[in-house]
């Protein structure tokens, strides 16, 4: 399997890994599988709506679409404990409100952000968790166990390692998941942080969303090995490869890494092979059409994660043929897709978030000068 392939599912564990007898996804109930499918729709709908809103000029900032990469977000979050930590970055916006969403979409006590908060952030409003001081994916929350990123790629991995170290010292059993693009793995801090985590066997799982492109640079110019997961070999840790289009395969590989981490065996890298559906950001859509070979784009978009999941549910008999033509968002671009292509629950859920964001106020100007220093003193 090469860097360029987003289709295969072979496992690339180190020899010292246990062979997996039954896959974690085999233990999911029918209801859980259905829930994952719904979550894929939710992530997709969020992206579709944002693209539409941006096109209408209602949003500022650059939009990094997660279209076609939703299985990575849903599959990696689904098996986490509420108390686990995550650090999503620019292409993972839905992750912010999908952390611990299994505790109830409308449950305000769950350890994750509400969709209202996340929309307030996207709209740049005062009800954002960071009061709109920094943009888009740079939100986070200590209490909700979401690490705040800067723009500097791979920069949250050492922070994740520190969170994990502190948790372990406290006797906790949390796992910390960091998300990164394949291009970001070239950063020096990626090496320093994973090396440190490996030396101390810290419970950090580094997910690499290999969508084949880092902005305008193909993966071959970022990474010299056949798989980006091969970077794990340099640290003697498991490097797993998942089919990023298949939410259940992502779930399986991430759970394997999470269990490894939780049991004290240390960090892993999980590469999820996928393909970037659009340009790097919405400002890049036209140019991407020029620098990316058309056939690659067609092939890359071929396996929509919602369709892959639907097919699986049909095969398993979880859903009947009446679902075959229901909610046909898959394969449709943001401009093609309509509300009818999504489950009503999804549309309603997000609309509430957007309404909240629109109604929220801008932060007062003077807040620009506030919170440079903490005034409270420490222990």
């Amino acid at each position, binding site marked *: 399997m090469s860097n360029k392939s987003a289709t295969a599912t072979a496992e690339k564990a180190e020899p010292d890994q246990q062979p997996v007898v039954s896959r974690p996804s085999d233990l999911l109930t029918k209801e859980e599988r259905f829930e994952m499918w719904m979550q894929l729709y939710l992530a997709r709908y969020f992206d579709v709506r944002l693209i539409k809103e941006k096109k209408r000029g209602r949003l500022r900032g650059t939009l990094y679409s997660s279209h076609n990469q939703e299985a990575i977000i849903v599959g990696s979050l689904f098996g986490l404990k509420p108390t686990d930590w995550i650090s999503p970055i620019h292409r993972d916006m839905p992750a912010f409100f999908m952390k611990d969403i299994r505790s109830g979409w409308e449950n305000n006590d769950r350890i994750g952000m509400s969709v209202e908060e996340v929309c307030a952030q996207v709209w740049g409003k005062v009800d954002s968790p960071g009061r709109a001081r920094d943009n888009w994916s740079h939100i986070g929350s200590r209490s909700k166990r979401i690490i705040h990123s800067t723009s500097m790629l791979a920069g949250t991995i050492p922070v994740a390692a520190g969170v994990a170290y502190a948790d372990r010292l406290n006797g906790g059993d949390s796992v910390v998941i960091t998300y990164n693009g394949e*291009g970001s793995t070239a950063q*020096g801090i990626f090496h320093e942080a994973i090396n440190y985590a490996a030396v101390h066997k810290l419970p950090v799982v580094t997910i690499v969303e290999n969508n084949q492109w880092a902005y305008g640079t193909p993966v071959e110019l970022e990474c010299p090995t056949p798989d980006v997961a091969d970077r794990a070999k340099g640290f003697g840790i498991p490097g797993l490869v998942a089919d990023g289009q298949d939410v259940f395969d992502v779930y399986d590989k991430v759970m394997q890494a999470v269990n490894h981490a939780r049991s004290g065996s240390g960090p892993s890298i999980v590469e999820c092979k996928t393909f970037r559906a659009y340009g790097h950001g919405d400002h890049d859509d036209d140019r991407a059409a020029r620098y990316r070979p058309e056939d690659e784009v067609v092939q890359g978009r071929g396996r929509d994660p919602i369709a892959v999941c639907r097919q699986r549910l049909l095969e398993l008999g979880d859903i009947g043929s009446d679902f075959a033509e229901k909610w046909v968002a898959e394969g449709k671009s943001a401009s093609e897709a309509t509300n009818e292509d999504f489950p009503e629950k999804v549309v309603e859920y997000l609309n509430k978030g957007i309404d909240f964001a629109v109604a929220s106020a801008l932060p007062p100007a003077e807040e620009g000068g506030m919170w440079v220093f903490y005034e409270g003193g420490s222990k």
Partner: protein
Amino acid sequence: MSATVDAPAILKKNYLTALKEAIDEEMLRNPDMICQGEDIGLLGGAFGVTDGLQAKYGNKRVVDMPISEAAIIGSAVGMALNGKTVMAEMQFIDFISCGFDQIVNMMATYHYRTAGEVNMPVVVRGPAGAYGGGALYHSQMNEAWFCNSPGLKVVCPSTPYDAKGLLKASLRDGNPVIFFEIKELYRRRELEEELPSEDYIVPLGKAAIRREGTDVTFVSYGQNVYHCLAAADELAKQGVHAEVIDIRTLVPLDEETIYNSIAKTNRVIVVNEAPMTCGFAGEIVARITTNAFDLLDAPPVRITRLDTPVPWVKPLELYVLPSVEKLVNAALQTVRY
């Protein structure tokens, strides 16, 4: 700055095109020149400054680098050591912090450490500056870090003419240069101007007087120059005549032009959009007060960003940055001192 009204529109070029031409012409002139950075080849750069260069010069001389700022700088140093001239792009100047050690400790000092054996024709350039809603990591003006790191020249053009002339001068200087491009000016229409068809440079270390005046001197660079000019317009209506100096190069600094102006106005306001503490505005104030104390009839004033990061949403962003209004108020206070 001085676009003639009747020149045919087609010949006018914006700041970004000026930069592109500078790189293109130097690549053509100097076969030992290499360009490297993230997404500069196939894509042509995040903003398009290197658009078309890879097709023209090949992917060996215009290199799409991994997302590795430290290796981008460090390998540029190695190339310079081995006889090359390198343009290294930071996708945003903010990311230069990821290659910081290689800049301040490896590159800046190479000439000094080798008692002059090795020189370092490397220009590290990138889009900089706030006022565009870029938030904390796409808005920085971190020039002071480099001004405090001996061995680096620091340049910041405000017009297309200067952008081209200063970039060419930087690429020929033989010293490492940190080149701050103001991304908010890249495509600003009002700045478009005709550029000389023949080769030219704007020498490093020479300031430009953008507007003459007698009552107060504004000293600035980058996009704040335009805030100063707008403030000067405003002040003129109130009978206060401000002179506006665009220093263009921070290191080395053209102090003479500044002192000559203050000799006339006896009042000075230094403006930049970096955090105030240890910023370059403070450096200019310090030099003025130590070297031209007797020329001053009023305390020099600094108008800078507050000592905060650059926040995202507009009201917050504008709150922390210099504005025309702040400049006008400061000038009125100063002349009344």
